């Protein structure tokens, strides 16, 4: 298995920590003038998103995690798994419910997603930062109320429920920020 030395550490690098794949978020070089040099790293566990901190002696090496990010197209869900395809090689990947997680409520067929593979199998799926989805259910719109700032719940075509302004009507397409789950704007056709 490949290993990375501390002098190759940089944010984004994927390492195996206690058996789990992790990505470096921050890396700081620490050294008392006359003493041992250390690399202090903050990492995100890619399986559970928990943030952890580790310190390595400078020059030490750590096992690399066989992790890569691919842009894949979402094909369909079969009840247990979501299926994705590499649009250039046509290779297909099946992602478990755990790997897809909350992303599921933002994506619909043919959307491009970033799928993180660990040892060749999907570990996590990230939706595009912004998606456009149609409103399938919400209370009748209050025309003209664009200033009050009041909101109401609306269900979109993927089944997700988000807070929207009062003027939004069934059948309208909305731009949504998937990182926060918030309404951004209406999309004019």
């Amino acid at each position, binding site marked *: 298995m490949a290993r990375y030395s501390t002098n190759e550490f940089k944010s984004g690098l994927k390492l195996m920590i206690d058996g789990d794949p992790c990505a470096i978020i921050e890396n700081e070089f620490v050294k008392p003038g006359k003493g041992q040099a*250390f690399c202090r790293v903050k990492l995100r566990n890619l399986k559970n998103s928990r943030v952890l901190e580790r310190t390595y*002696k400078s020059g030490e090496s750590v096992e690399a995690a066989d992790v890569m990010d691919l842009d894949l197209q979402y094909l369909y869900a079969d009840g247990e798994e979501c299926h994705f395809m590499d649009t250039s090689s046509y290779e297909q990947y099946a992602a478990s419910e755990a790997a897809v997680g909350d992303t599921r409520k933002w994506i619909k067929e043919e959307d491009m997603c970033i799928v993180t593979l660990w040892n060749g199998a999907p570990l996590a799926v990230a939706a595009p930062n912004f998606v456009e989805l149609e409103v399938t259910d919400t209370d009748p719109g209050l025309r003209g109320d664009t200033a009050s700032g009041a909101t109401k719940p609306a269900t979109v075509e993927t089944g997700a429920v988000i807070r929207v302004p009062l003027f939004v009507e069934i059948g309208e397409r909305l731009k949504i920020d998937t990182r926060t789950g918030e309404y951004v704007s209406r999309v004019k056709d």
Partner: protein
Amino acid sequence: MSKDPVVASVETLQARARMLAVIRGFFSERSVLEVETPLLCSSTTSELHIESFCAEDNSSGAGGFLQTSPESCMKRLLAAGSGAIYQICKAFRAGEAGRLHNPEFSMLEWYRPDLGYHGLMDEVGDLLRLILQLKSQRRISYGDAFRRYAGIDPFDISLAGLRKEAEKHGLSGATDREQCLDFLLSLKVQPALGAGLTFIYDFPAAQAAMARVRPGSPAVAERFEAYVDGVELANGYRELIDPVEQESRMWADLERRAAAGIAPVPMDEKLLAALRAGLPECSGVALGLDRLMMLATDSDSLASVISFSYEQA
């Protein structure tokens, strides 16, 4: 001036020039002589944790080491009867790059034949007060600093206890005593020092480097480090003047380098010869000028106060 975003601002360059003028004025007033010594030397430090750059003649391959500090040459001047001296120069340390490190950096180093190391701490404080707004100034021994901020006695604790403590704070594969102590100093003690100037003094004898060891229980190195707002700024010694002790420390360093698989360095015979001829009783200190500039301008990395950092040089 270019709009190159990686270049320190014109205001920073001006502030740096003013800082250098203040430093030269300070030493001129105190009759400390400014000297220059070679950056390219035939030998270099033997210290385990400091790695040197080699500079070679592009065609013949002949060359030397870029100095990691001017200590050796300045001690040779002291042995030759220079009296109190200071130097503003570049120093080079391979592999040290980060927010607070640049492999090439500016150093202020000075030696006082007439001062003890506590007297030299006073002088470091006097100089820093001309450049920084210091909220406070205090001294704490290495032992007290560890007892207070890391909750352990660095002289008494067993190696097993020390390893456990280091692992508890996230160090993987802690091995020897000094590594664990360096880790806890950097990660526990230093960040807890708070605002203002703090001197930590009387280090473990194993971390004496070129400082005198004072016998006792425990024996301690007459060495100090100055920290401002938790940033390590200066390292000073009551200088070791005994050539026999100096030579045996160098051999011990070379053995530790060999055991760690690090490239050997030649013995600094010229320094040993100067010590045999007689280095006067003195104290000396080295201070990082880029870090001082960073603190003076309230910046958060060396790159913003250096005209061109290592990556841009």
